């Protein structure tokens, strides 16, 4: 069923329950996000993609990556309320990961000059969960997942030991937006490559980290499926 929604005054027809973010992409409206990938289930963790949605005369901030399009929905992607919220989130992320290029660039783009919050060390992982979902949904092995909770939360293999189910496809490394997942050689051949978490020297992105409008990203899935098939055939 097709529905009609309005984004920033422009009308677009999409399938019912299409994420607002995808609908906006059709209108070439850029919404920043760090945890969304169209090949994966929306997770809604980074909250950077918030937009203001009007329904039944009431407005509320919703995450566009998982807010389903319903007929008559009116969305604004760049109101003051949206901008303030995004800036605030970006500031929190910058306090967490002050040295990550993508975070720095995105923050600069939003006009954040100084962080009001105390810097909390120099972490690279923003816990977007892309690697976890890629490993579960695309590769189908769930070699890595979140461990602990709250401020202690991190990505790890079960019990922090070398994973037996990892096929070493590298999808986690590929999909990681901050270059936090590193591939290390040296595992036993039957396991493919071994993987552990660490820092990866990040090559500069040719597309200013706008993954949503990126050609490389679009080709990723096809190439990725081929790699997975390859590796599976070998092991």
């Amino acid at each position, binding site marked *: 069923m097709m529905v009609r929604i309005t984004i920033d005054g422009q009308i677009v027809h999409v399938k019912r329950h299409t994420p607002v973010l995808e609908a906006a992409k059709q209108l070439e409206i850029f919404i920043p996000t760090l945890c969304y990938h169209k090949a994966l289930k929306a997770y*809604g963790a980074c909250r950077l993609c918030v937009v203001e949605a009007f329904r039944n005369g009431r407005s509320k901030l919703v995450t566009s990556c998982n807010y389903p399009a319903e007929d008559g929905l009116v969305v604004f992607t760049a109101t003051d309320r949206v901008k*303030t919220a995004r800036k605030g*989130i970006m500031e929190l992320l910058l*306090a967490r990961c002050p040295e990550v290029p993508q975070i720095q660039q995105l923050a600069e783009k939003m006009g954040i000059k100084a962080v009001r919050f105390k810097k909390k060390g120099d972490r690279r992982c923003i*816990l977007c969960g892309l690697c976890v979902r890629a490993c579960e949904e695309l590769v189908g092995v769930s070699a890595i997942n979140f461990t602990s*909770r709250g401020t202690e*939360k991190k990505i790890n293999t079960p019990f922090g030991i070398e994973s037996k189910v990892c096929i070493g496809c590298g999808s986690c490394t590929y999909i990681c937006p901050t270059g936090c997942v590193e591939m290390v050689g040296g595992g036993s051949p039957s396991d493919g490559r071994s993987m552990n978490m660490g820092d990866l020297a990040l090559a500069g992105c040719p597309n200013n980290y706008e993954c949503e409008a990126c050609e490389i990203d679009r080709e990723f899935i096809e190439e990725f499926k081929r790699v997975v098939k390859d590796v599976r055939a070998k092991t």
Partner: protein
Amino acid sequence: MISKIKTPSDLEVLRQAILSRQDPNKQVLRVCCTTACRAGGALDIVKNFKEELAERGLQDKVEVKKTGCRGFCEKGPVMVIEPEEIFYSEVKPKDVTKIIDYTLLDGRPVKRLLYTDAETRKKITNEKDIPFFGKQVRRVFSKTGKIDPTQIQDYIAEGGYRALAKALTTMEPEEIIEAVEASGLRGRGGGGFPTGRKWRACWEAPGSARYVIANGDEGDPGAFMDRSLMEGDPHSIVEGMIIGAYAIGANEGFIYVRDEYPIAVEHLSIAVEQATSLGLLGKDILGAGFDFTIEIERGAGAFVCGESTALMNSLEGRVGEPRAKYVHTVASGLWDRPSALNNVETWANVPLIIDRGAEWYASTGTANSKGTKIFSLVGKVQNTGLIEVPMGITLREIIFDIGGGIRKGGKLFKAVQTGGPSGGCIPEHKMDMPVDYDSLKSLGAIMGSGGMIVMDENTCMVDTAKYFVNFLMSESCGKCVPCREGLEQMHEILTNICEGNGEAEDIALLERLSSLMMDTSLCALGGTAPNPVLSTIRYFRDEYEAHIFDKECPAGVCRNPGIIRVTEFGCESPLRFYEYCFACPQFKDGCPDLSLSRTMLEGKRKLVFSDKLDSEDTVNAKEFHCLKPLSYFEKSRNTCGRQGKCREEGLLVDLLSGKKELVHSGTRLKKS
């Protein structure tokens, strides 16, 4: 073994049979055996009673019942003797003989065990004359404290499952939903969403399989009403769930209860087992052609699993993290199927509505909040425990009439924190507001699941906010950025303020961070997490300002880790030693005596007075140039029984090593 109940008349026959077996002349001892009283030895009391009664051949004349909670946990273990209705509190196992001799055989109460009124100092014999019970309206709790929760016969004798029979055989599902809507029942777990509306949405949602879920994952600090209900009257939850399932069209139900509540798990399991064996659960319940089963799932104790979607994730065997609710759980919940999730207390209200009618139910309460609510009244109040009160009662009545006011010690009431960690602190001048969902919200607090923590003037409100933020920070699932990072930053700012390192813009920063978290958090945990901060800023801004600008904690709670207050010294000798040396001009220029003193204070070397005893482990008294340190070691330390193994010397070492500073004013966070 009782045969299965196949029709409503079977149930009535069974009820009459149970009632006719009861001997009206038999004395009944109802001993509370739930967690709090059990900790006080209630099980031993029951055991002693049974043994002694058997020894004296009284076991047929007196019945001992292990019941659920009566609410007066402050005075536990409690028991009631019927038919005289004598209420005993703070009973000890060794009191059993006396109770049998005096009360059971002679009809006289044991005065020592009677409740003493705090004001009049009079002994009160009967439970209903005690002020703690006087203003309560016990409906959901009407059977706890009376029945043995592990005996379905007790529940049936008290009219249990009558509502189920009425619903299944005389009402259409939509009629039940209409009745719940008309009753005005709202979710008792915190949100206060109208239960009837939730059920209707679930009933109308497309899909064949659907579920009902009871949320027994109570995790608020200081709250235990759900635990008591599950321990004391599990059948009321089961009955409510069967009625709800019939209304919605669900054939499967789950009770999610935290594993930290072993007695609740045990009693619920027994209840489900007994209801199944009687045919009240299973296939073709009461001949109405309706099938329903209940499964009990134990949670691992994550606070966030009390959130509906996190609970469902956990039930599915996934990580207990909330997910987006843009499509409501009533349409796509557990395994993406329509699911009606209610708090256990909400479920326990359902049989009351069906049995006595929506009109009767709605006659209690305020315009938008109907019925009664169970609160756990804890903190610096005299009578802690569980209370059930009608909606609309004022906070003052709850705290001062039922709770008996602030504990002895002459302190004044300061604030009450309602709604658990996501709730807010309400000050004295708002005490006359009626308690219902909307008025509490307007005060910046929430009803929550019903925790009430009373605080007196010895409580620092900034410290209180920090405590709750710390709790939420460690219980946040860490999925979304504003909650995970925001709470960490919030905690840091509050810690700074508490330690006297707050800055002028901190209050504004806290407010801005709060509004960000409320606006953008994924679930209600992050969305309501700023409540304790915002409500304390709203009502106790002066305390924040005192911490930030005057570096002072008005309640004298907060301390800067870098300072030591004079009042912390219980013994004066080390203090006088330090003060003398601190005033000496040599103190800062590296006095050789002080470095000697430090090695001695740290226990490395001992003082000797003879050259013959000199060794590496000793300090000869001759080495001291100044008499003050020497006199401390010689006189004060050597004559003291603790010989330097006291806390004060630890403070002295910290002071001498320059790690900490001494402050003379009792409340200041920093040296002025």
